[in-house]
Each structure stands twice: as structure tokens, then as C-alpha cells.
């Protein structure tokens, strides 16, 4: 394969993933707008049903479900940042050529989460992607093993 073709393929991989993320972000924003409307309706209903004590537990559950969906939707922010930091090197290689040694530190620097750094560490240690996936799946089943010592481990806010 010649260099131009290889670069085009790298650009295509970047573009496909970038467009998928952009489209998904639009959908997530749309769902979020529906959720916001749902929460407004819930607040309106709560006022109307204030006197009806039988409905309080259902209203509380509805509110809890809305909170839970919004909380879970934070996955997209993580997914987006993780994907972007994975595809940006493809774009850079297409532009500058693949010189792995020069980019290795850039990889590590662009990995913002403990999970990303762990994937990097495991892949460097193992002989193949299959071995790395097995190891990472084992770790995923035992989350205590995935947090590295150089990461912030507090569940609460950290006050300076």
C-alpha cells in the first residue's frame, strides 16, 4: 500500500469515528432536552398532586428515575473524551506520518482517565490485543484492581 492510500485510510478512520461522536452528541442533547421537559412536567404535577398523599411515593420515584437517567448520561461525556483522545493520533499520523517513538508520550499525556492509562499499561505489557482484552475484562470484574496509585481515589469532592 502506498503512503497516500495509508494516509487516506487513517483519515477515513478518524472521520468515521468523529462523525459518529458528533451525531451521537446531537442525539444525547435531544434526549436531554426531553428529560428537561419531563422534569418540568414532574414539578408541575407535584404541585397539582400535593394534596393527594397516595401519589407522593410515585412522584418521588418518578423524580428519582429522572435524576438517575441524568446521572447515567454522564457516560457520554466520558465516551466522547475517550474516543477523541483515541482518534486524534490517527488524524496526526495522516498529516505527519507514523513515527511511533515521537508520539508515545503524547498518547500517555492525552489519556485523562485511570481507565485509559490502564488500557495503555496492559496493552504494552501483553503480546496481543486479545490478551489485553482478557486482562482488562478480568479487571473490569474486579474494579478494585483498576485504580492505579497515582490517581485520585476520593468519591467526595476534594477541597484544597
Amino acid at each position: 500500500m502506498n503512503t497516500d492510500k495509508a494516509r487516506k485510510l487513517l483519515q477515513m478512520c478518524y472521520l468515521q469515528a468523529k462523525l459518529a461522536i458528533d451525531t451521537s452528541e446531537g442525539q444525547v442533547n435531544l434526549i436531554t432536552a426531553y428529560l428537561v421537559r419531563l422534569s418540568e412536567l414532574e414539578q408541575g404535577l407535584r404541585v397539582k398532586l400535593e394534596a393527594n398523599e397516595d401519589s407522593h411515593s410515585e412522584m418521588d420515584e418518578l423524580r428519582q428515575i429522572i435524576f438517575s437517567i441524568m446521572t447515567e448520561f454522564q457516560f457520554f461525556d466520558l465516551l466522547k473524551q475517550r474516543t477523541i483522545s483515541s482518534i486524534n493520533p490517527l488524524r496526526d499520523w495522516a498529516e505527519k506520518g507514523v513515527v511511533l517513538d515521537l508520539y508515545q508520550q503524547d498518547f500517555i499525556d492525552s489519556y485523562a482517565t485511570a481507565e485509559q492509562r490502564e488500557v495503555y499499561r496492559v496493552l504494552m505489557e501483553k503480546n496481543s490485543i486479545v490478551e489485553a482484552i482478557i486482562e482488562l475484562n478480568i479487571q473490569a470484574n474486579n474494579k478494585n484492581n483498576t485504580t492505579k496509585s497515582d490517581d485520585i481515589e476520593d468519591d467526595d469532592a476534594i477541597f484544597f
Partner: protein
Amino acid sequence: MKKILVVDDAASTRELIGYTLKDAGYDITQANDGVEALEVAQNVIFDLVLTDINMPNMDGISLVRYLRRLPGYQSTPILLSTIESGKSIKVLGKQAGATALIIKPMNREVLFKAVKRMLG
């Protein structure tokens, strides 16, 4: 009613925070990035600023630095939120003048507890 400025480029996160804090009785204003937040903060003094770090146009760390130079924001509590769990981000946040840091994904209880502690 205490006024809180919520800054995040992810609409779903902004709405989560907005919904949670509005429900707790706070007056919420949202901004999409640091530039928008700075414009809003020049006209309104907020009691607390909650900002994401990784944003386009102006990131959260730069926003903290700019806010600290604005009249009325020298001692305003600023809570950073980020998916970055490396210790270097904690150092950066502290140096910029932030008050605290919260790691995403955050849940309602952790967020509420942090805000309550900062606003008394």
C-alpha cells in the same frame, strides 16, 4: 436565593447539575464554555461557580484564573469538575485558585454535599 453558575460543554451534565441544584433551591445559570461564563460573570456576581475543566474555547482552569481577577470573585467558591483523575489536575486546579475538585461521573449526593459545604 443563592446564585450558582454552572459551566460545562456537555448539555446532559449541565442539565443534571442544574436540575439537582434547582431542586435544592438554588438559582442556576448555565454557560457552555469558559468564554460564555466569563461574559455572564462580568454582569452578575454568583455565590458559587461550578465548572468543567475540559471545554472548547476556554478551559476551566483558565476560567478560574480569569475569574479570580474579576471584582467580586476573589473569594467566591469555585468547584472544578473533571473526568481527569491524575493528581496533576489537582495541583493545576489549586494553583489556579479553585476551591475544590469533583471527579465525574458525579452523583447527586456528592454534588449536593460539596455545594452545601461551600455555601454553608
